[in-house]
């Protein structure tokens, strides 16, 4: 479990990004961290990984503070940065150098992942194309079998078949003990992988809810006329009518559209807050 306890963070004391953020993250879910560029997605992940420290408040990962960077903590977490950096090593050399830090690293998983993502294993890493490098680090990150896996924009730079392979790998890597965090602004790529949604904007957590709860509280549909008196979170004119997200008062079970939800929540945070009170 990850717990943020009154976390405040800013890159300078004058301009704070997060103010008094308190929330808990349970095991056994894939968290989708959604936000525009500069919204504070990577910042949040780096506070969990212990590469950035809160100015006030505390982050606890299973009771341990990441900022202490204890080896016993670091071996349980993998942070996959958005920008890929790979040294001039072969895949085997890279594994020999970095895998020993992760006691649950599985060579079988590693080669299986590389095979499924179609990354050749004989090449020097820095000679690979950007997309191949990205797939290599994904294959490695998943093979480390850490309890916590943080991935910053993992589908950036992947071609369409690789995105599908990526989803399959995530589905097979998931279990009740793990926490997988995926930050993205390309919601479509991962729509069906996420079961808990976090939407951040300007360092504010605007929404934190499970897909099940979203389905219970909101209904997503296309209507000819917007019903009067309904609590509307989002509308968008479409060819066939108007796409709306409104409060689900009749217990309807509709398909969630995360892109519309994201737009609705960032445009009307006050309405979202009313339907989904945080804390």
């Amino acid at each position: 479990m990850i717990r943020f306890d009154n976390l405040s963070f800013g890159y300078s004391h004058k301009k704070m990004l997060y103010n008094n953020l308190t929330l808990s993250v349970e095991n056994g879910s894939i968290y989708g961290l959604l936000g525009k560029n500069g919204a504070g997605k990577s910042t949040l992940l780096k506070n969990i990984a212990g590469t950035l420290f809160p100015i006030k408040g505390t982050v606890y990962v299973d009771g341990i503070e990441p900022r202490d960077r204890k080896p016993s903590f670091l071996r349980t977490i993998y942070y996959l940065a958005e920008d890929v950096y790979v040294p001039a090593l072969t895949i085997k050399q890279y594994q020999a150098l970095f895998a020993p830090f992760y006691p649950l690293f599985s060579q079988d998983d590693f080669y299986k992942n590389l095979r499924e993502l179609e990354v050749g294993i004989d090449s020097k890493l820095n000679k690979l194309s950007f997309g191949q490098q990205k797939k290599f680090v994904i294959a490695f990150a998943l093979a480390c079998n850490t309890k916590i896996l943080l991935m910053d924009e993992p589908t950036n730079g992947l071609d369409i078949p690789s995105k599908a392979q990526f989803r399959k790998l995530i589905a097979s890597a998931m279990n009740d003990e793990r926490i997988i965090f995926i930050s993205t602004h390309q919601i479509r790529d991962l729509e069906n992988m996420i079961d808990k949604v976090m939407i951040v904007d300007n360092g504010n957590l605007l929404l934190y809810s499970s897909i099940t709860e979203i389905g219970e509280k909101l209904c997503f549909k296309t209507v000819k006329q917007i019903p009067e008196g309904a609590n509307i979170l989002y509308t968008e004119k479409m060819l066939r009518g108007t796409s709306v997200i409104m409060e689900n008062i009749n217990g309807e079970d509709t398909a969630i559209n995360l892109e519309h939800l994201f737009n609705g929540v960032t445009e009307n945070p006050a309405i979202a807050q009313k339907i989904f009170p945080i804390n």
Partner: protein
Amino acid sequence: MDFRDNQPIYLQIAEYVCDQLLLKKWLPANKILSIRDLAVMMEVNPNTVQRAYDFLQQQEIIINKRGVGYFADENAIDKVIKLRKEQFIKNELPLLFRNMYLLNLSTSEITQRYEDFIDQNFKES
């Protein structure tokens, strides 16, 4: 698999399982795909497949044998048909009735067309 945008994903997964049973690709009283394998195949979160399986268990279409896995019920096909019938009556029939009313189509005309349709598509010549 391509998902439609008019129904929650978990219900579409449940529908897929029902289709496999009706098509006899998955057999009654036999083991069915594990949650993980189906999640990988469909590229969805395993918790979503879990939700679909919970739903199918409530309908007694599948059974969870602890430690062994999920199995199709012995009478799975009858139960799928019963469930589909309920869904058809609840979701599709009102639309059909509404259009019949708007277009002033009589039930006798519909009966005739229904019988022709069955003759053309499902009767062996």
